[in-house]
């Protein structure tokens, strides 16, 4: 039909119809284009109230008093709650460390911390009533960086810590510290012909998912509550919510409603407990929807970081050693900080072979906004720094930056700094080769027959240049990300699969608690069921807590884990179908006992292709229904002193080439093309895989040139909590993203697949930075790059 499409290429092994390997369309696609898909902010209940959260206007203070009288007296207000109204002894929650107060108690530790809740019959009434709550704050000194956090007389962000990290940190304002020592960096450094060091700064990035935090809590007759919410992990929420409400978990029934993106920002609780508290207090359904301003305070962000690196190499381009120190700002509460530290440390040198390393990563407690999970999770910050270092070393050696990377690229059989053997394909050099060999976009790509198309130039529609003073640069980067939960975590997922005959046709029903946040897991589950069970009709039930945990939609793990769980349960269901068939028809045909059996096209067939029976005839009125858990290979904790341990399940790799054009006079950058090559092991749904890669790439682009939450270093107040001042890439800022997908199977993973979602977010940022450095000759040790960094003014 002659429609231009972004070039994408996929070297694919095999695909089955509607099954795995095919780009089947999303089952929720039609609902999403008609506006009928119910997101958590769309929920409505007769008689429902609106909840609103009053948040602190200062970053660190003791609360001298809270007066709710006037707010409570406001017509239309049904409840006002503070810490004193919490119903049980459990008043804190947290992913790993329960350090976050449900409502502030005597103290606030960051700007925007929840202090009180209001329920009213109109959202504006709730907002206005909240404004009448009088909170008297007595300011405390703010901790904003490593120096202020670890000073001997520093105020402690958390008094009396009892968590399991306090024993191995040098100061109570350090959440967790992970060193990794391997080989002898001092001795190896003596062999180096060049040594390059640098200090890097990574700004605070926001997930900026478009669907605001929201949900609806409905009180139930049994004293429990039904909660409809957008989240990444229903069962983790449940584990944190129920004790605060004083309810057994079975009385807190959670259902996933439509999720408008997540990217890590929904791994922690937002309105869940608050909505339930208000619903239980008022006896009415309560809906809470954050607006964008509040959303910036309502979830954790990507850790900003300072990173120090030293790389050494011999004249022939072999890395001798790496020393690095990564300091992550975890903000006021722990959230996922300990795991982010583990990732940053263990992936700190990138996808390269280095035998002698001296690594340290740590996260601070400060009064800055809390930071936690975001796509790339600790590996993103490190990748930005080590890739800048790789370019610097290559330049010092007079080598081509891609060739230098390829010389040092890890491969299957490489040993990580943690001592873990990489035991599946690691095509790092090949990914670089692929992005490099792609033809470059034409020079002066903005020129048309009618003159310059300003939309294709730095400054775009603001029409600041017609091509004068515009310089091109090209940069490369590659990264490594772990897939799945690491460091000995018991990571599992559950799938329930039912097979029965409906209207003469075999139908499979798949039930999991997997949070579909946009990634397309629901599409893939149906594909897996079709492939494994030989049916065309698959029903995917809504995710809820009536089935076992699916784990989080994070760490690029859901296709591996819940996809793996669906596959695993389907296989068990299939065996049951075979058993039934053998009992019914085994005597008629010896192949039932002797042949390898398959389910295909609604039939039981032998591996030789002979049809033995219709599935419908095998099942008749029987229903096969199983719920099973699936686990990946166990991992180990990292040794607290040496960082040694088989901490990770799987690694994934992506490489980027960025082509930029820079208006050096005004400091404006236009990214012209951002090509990516990634190994995905097996693309279960190629269309979704490419979509993930392009989306991840764009988030990496954002933090390269525009995205940063700016926190005042003196007050720790957030300066830009809006889409007016926190910019994310628009369609004009985003270039063509050609994608090259490799499928090199990981034999340990279901279908050989490799988690896809995060790797492209890593290398995108340093590739863009490298390209800007090449265009401008500037050092640029911080991201995002702003115009003033390029013009020096």
């Amino acid at each position: 039909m002659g429609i231009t499409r972004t070039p994408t290429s996929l070297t694919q092994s095999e695909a089955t119809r509607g099954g795995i390997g095919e780009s089947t369309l999303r089952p929720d696609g039609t609902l999403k284009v008609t506006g009928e898909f119910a997101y958590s902010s769309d929920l409505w209940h007769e008689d429902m109230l609106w909840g609103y959260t009053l948040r602190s206007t200062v970053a660190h203070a003791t609360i001298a008093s809270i007066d709710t009288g006037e707010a409570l007296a406001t017509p239309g207000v049904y409840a006002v709650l503070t810490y004193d109204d919490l119903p049980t002894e459990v008043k804190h929650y947290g992913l790993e460390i329960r350090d976050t107060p449900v409502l502030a108690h005597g103290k606030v530790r960051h700007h925007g911390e929840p202090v009180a809740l209001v329920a009213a019959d109109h959202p504006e009434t709730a907002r206005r009533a909240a404004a009448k709550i009088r909170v008297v704050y007595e300011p405390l000194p703010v901790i904003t960086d490593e120096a202020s956090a670890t000073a001997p007389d520093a105020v402690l962000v958390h008094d009396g810590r009892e968590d399991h990290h306090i024993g191995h940190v040098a100061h109570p304002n350090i959440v967790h510290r992970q060193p990794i020592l391997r080989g002898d960096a001092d001795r190896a450094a003596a062999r180096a012909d060049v040594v390059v060091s640098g200090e890097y700064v990574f700004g605070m990035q926001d997930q900026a998912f478009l669907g605001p935090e929201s949900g609806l809590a409905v009180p139930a007759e049994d004293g429990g509550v039904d909660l409809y919410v957008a989240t990444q992990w229903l069962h983790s929420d449940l584990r944190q919510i129920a004790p605060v409400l004083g309810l057994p978990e079975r009385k807190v029934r959670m259902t996933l409603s439509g999720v408008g993106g997540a990217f890590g920002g929904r791994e922690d609780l937002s309105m869940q407990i608050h909505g339930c508290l208000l619903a239980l207090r008022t006896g009415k359904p309560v809906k809470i929807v954050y607006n964008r301003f509040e959303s910036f305070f309502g979830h954790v962000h990507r850790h900003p970081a300072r990173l120090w690196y030293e790389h050494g190499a011999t004249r022939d381009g072999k890395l001798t050693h790496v020393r690095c120190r990564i300091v992550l700002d975890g903000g006021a509460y722990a959230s996922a900080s300990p795991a982010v530290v583990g990732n940053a440390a263990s992936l700190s040198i990138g996808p390269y072979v280095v035998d002698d390393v001296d690594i340290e990563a740590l996260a601070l407690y400060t009064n800055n906004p809390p930071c936690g999970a975001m796509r790339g999770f600790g590996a993103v910050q490190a990748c930005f720094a080590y890739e800048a270092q790789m370019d610097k070393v290559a330049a010092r050696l007079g080598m081509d930056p891609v060739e230098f990377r390829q010389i040092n690229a890890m491969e299957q059989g490489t040993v990580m700094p943690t001592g873990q053997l990489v035991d599946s394909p690691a095509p790092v050099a090949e990914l670089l080769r692929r992005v490099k060999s792609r033809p470059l976009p034409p020079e002066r790509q903005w020129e048309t027959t009618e003159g310059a198309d300003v939309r294709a130039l730095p400054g775009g529609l603001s029409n600041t240049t017609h091509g004068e003073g515009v310089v091109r640069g090209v940069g490369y980067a590659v990264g490594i990300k772990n897939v799945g939960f690491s460091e000995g975590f018991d990571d599992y997922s559950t799938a329930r699969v039912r097979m029965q005959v409906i209207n003469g046709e075999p139908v499979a029903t798949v039930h999991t608690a997997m949070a579909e946040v946009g990634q397309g897991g629901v599409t893939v589950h149906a594909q897996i069921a079709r492939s494994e069970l030989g049916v065309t009709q698959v029903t995917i039930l809504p995710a809820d807590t009536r089935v076992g945990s699916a784990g989080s939609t994070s760490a690029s793990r859901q296709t591996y884990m819940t996809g793996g769980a669906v596959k695993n349960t389907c296989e068990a269901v299939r065996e049951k179908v075979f058993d039934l068939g053998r009992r019914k028809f085994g005597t008629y045909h010896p192949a039932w006992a002797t042949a390898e059996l398959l389910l295909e096209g609604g039939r039981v067939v032998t591996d030789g292709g002979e049809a033995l029976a219709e599935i419908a005839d095998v099942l008749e009125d029987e229903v096969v229904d199983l719920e099973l858990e699936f686990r990946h290979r166990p991992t180990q904790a990292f040794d607290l002193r040496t960082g040694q341990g088989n901490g990770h399940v799987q690694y994934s790799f992506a490489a980027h080439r960025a082509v930029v054009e820079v208006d050096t006079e005004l400091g404006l950058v236009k990214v012209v093309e951002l090509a990516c090559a990634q190994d995905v092991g097996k693309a279960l749904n190629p269309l979704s895989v490419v979509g993930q890669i392009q989306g991840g790439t764009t988030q990496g682009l954002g933090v390269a040139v525009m995205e940063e939450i700016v926190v005042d270093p003196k007050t720790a107040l957030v300066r830009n909590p809006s889409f007016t001042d926190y910019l994310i890439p628009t369609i004009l800022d985003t270039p063509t993203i050609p994608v090259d997908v490799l499928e090199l199977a990981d034999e340990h993973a279901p279908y050989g697949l490799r988690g896809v979602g995060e790797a492209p977010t890593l290398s995108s940022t340093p590739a863009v930075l490298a390209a800007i450095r090449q265009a401008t000759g500037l050092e640029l040790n911080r991201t995002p790059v702003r115009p003033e960094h390029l013009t020096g003014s």
Partner: protein
Amino acid sequence: MRVSFTVNGRPQEADDVWEGESLLYVLRERLGLPGSKNACEQGECGSCTVRLDGVPVCSCLVAAGQAQDRRVDTVEGLAGEGGELSPIQQAFVDAGAVQCGFCTPGLLVAADELLEHNPSPSDGDIREALSGNLCRCTGYEKILDAVRLAAARTGQAV
């Protein structure tokens, strides 16, 4: 106050509207049309895009009262009477332009308007027309694909 206007061809009325209420709020919370989204309520994201007398606007920035006696078209009005998807809706599904889908309603309304007055837009035209609509999931590539696909399909049909 009472506000009445036409939504997707049907006269609608909302009572007890508070004067500060946006058109977006009235559509979503009073008229049962939550298809238009509320990603920022600051006029920055385009997820609330509707057409007011044919012109795309951010309905979060329009006071409900301003819509009095006017024609409002939302994402809910794109599909045909029998529920069949419009070309731009079908193209978004087919091209993989929908991930979380929160940006989708606004993009569809904006893209539909673009194709109405420019049936074969260049990539530059598409980017310009959709530059007020943020998407955080897709990297926009497949959204471009979808608009190109809809344009090509419609062009063929004529």
